[in-house]
């Protein structure tokens, strides 16, 4: 599964994207796995209220299942326009 990071999430983790091998059933389970890896991940995901997730480029929620998903993206609330 491709995991993408944008804006300050990308900066805190230090990567724009990476390939993650996981059997996490939900977004929340994936976050928990990532947070356990290293301090920089723990920091990036420490405040979930200021995070959004997209599954295969569609906005989704933390309890969404990951079955069949190829691309997960984490980012702060959007500030376009």
């Amino acid at each position, binding site marked *: 599964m491709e995991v*993408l990071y*944008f*804006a*300050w999430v*990308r900066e805190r983790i230090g990567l724009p994207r990476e390939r993650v091998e996981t059997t996490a059933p939900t977004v929340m389970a994936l976050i928990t796995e990532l947070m356990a890896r290293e301090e920089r991940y723990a920091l990036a995901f420490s405040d979930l209220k200021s995070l959004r997730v*997209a599954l295969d*480029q*569609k*906005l989704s929620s933390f309890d969404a299942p990951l079955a069949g998903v190829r691309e997960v*993206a984490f*980012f*702060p*609330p*959007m*500030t*376009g*326009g």
Partner: protein
Amino acid sequence: MRLSVQEVEFDAGAELNAFSAGLAGAGAVVSFTGIVRDSDGTLSAMEIEHYPGMTEAAIAAIITQAQTRWDLADVLVIHRYGKLEPSAQIMMVATASRHRLAAFEAAEFLMDYLKSRAPFWKKEIGRDGSTWVDAKDEDESALKRW
């Protein structure tokens, strides 16, 4: 419908004229242009990050929503990414309809959704460092009126 996510500058006047020239039956055209504002004179640039692929899909979905809701003769959305100087144009929307109310409402709807539902992130690069622009509560609550 014209949708462009681009790094290069655009000519808002030329876009407005091209948009208006192609209309049939419209009596009202509304345009909005967003400009990099240097609030306190310390901004050296605005950096806009986006999510290639998702950005275009998200904007197209927002345009479809607007077209479903209002009777629009045409819609235009241009949004830039990359490094923008103060006073540079960030983005533009235009809407055309038979009547002014629909054109105004659809343009405001597009702006409200582009602000909070299209994957762009703004970073202000100042003389003393850079900061990601925080999403405002009012931008999220602006969606509730639709």
